[in-house]
């Protein structure tokens, strides 16, 4: 029942993180990773040179732990949880975020739990990215406004 949450400047190592939440009862893991897109086609099509991520670190870590608790409250079969956000200057093709959830079996919510985790992280974990494009730079702004108790 291990929970690992981390804000890091280091490369995200999927093998090591998965192993860290695997135990003798683990039979399934659902993992989500997000990467920097160099080319975006949806919405306003554009190129990205790199992203500069920053975090309000102690609050981000607290909110990542909260996301893990919310996952456990919703899927009691989830055993291990990893949530890692990488920050700093990140180039296209680089994984920036990882959410992994493990369980004994694949049919008791691991996919839904990982999906919930990334959606929730993008709502409440205080991390921002500045997008550097060939023709300028701008902060990417989210849309979610937390309500009291979040």
């Amino acid at each position, binding site marked *: 029942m291990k929970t690992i949450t981390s804000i890091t400047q280091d490369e995200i190592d999927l093998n090591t993180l998965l192993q860290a939440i695997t135990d003798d009862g683990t039979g399934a893991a659902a993992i989500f990773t997000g990467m920097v897109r160099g080319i975006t086609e949806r919405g306003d099509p554009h190129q990205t040179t790199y992203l500069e991520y920053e975090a309000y670190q102690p609050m981000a870590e607290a909110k990542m732990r909260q996301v893990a608790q919310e996952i456990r409250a919703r899927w009691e079969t989830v055993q291990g949880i990893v949530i890692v956000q990488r920050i700093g200057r990140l180039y296209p093709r680089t994984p920036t975020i990882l959410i992994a959830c493990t369980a004994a079996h694949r049919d008791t919510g691991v996919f839904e739990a990982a999906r919930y985790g990334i959606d929730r992280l993008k709502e409440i*974990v205080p991390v921002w990215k500045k997008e550097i494009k060939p023709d300028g730079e701008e902060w990417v702004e989210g849309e979610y406004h*937390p309500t009291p108790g979040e």
Partner: protein
Amino acid sequence: MSPTKILFFATLRDRAATRALEMELPPGTTIAQLKSLLIQQRPALAGLLEHCLASINHEYRFDEDPIPPAAEVAFFPPVSGG
């Protein structure tokens, strides 16, 4: 009085032209009142600070919430991590 630590992130930091500052606040000062004070001191924050998110001691807080002594208050736009 214990000073309140105030942090700015992302666009708010650019507009405030600082990452952090400390202020002595009267007991019971709310987030809304602190925003007004900050806009008086740093007019560049006007139009942005009113609608941004706020936290007190790493929890989301709102205009009407009072700031306890020696708190860490942060202002920032909606998050965009992932």
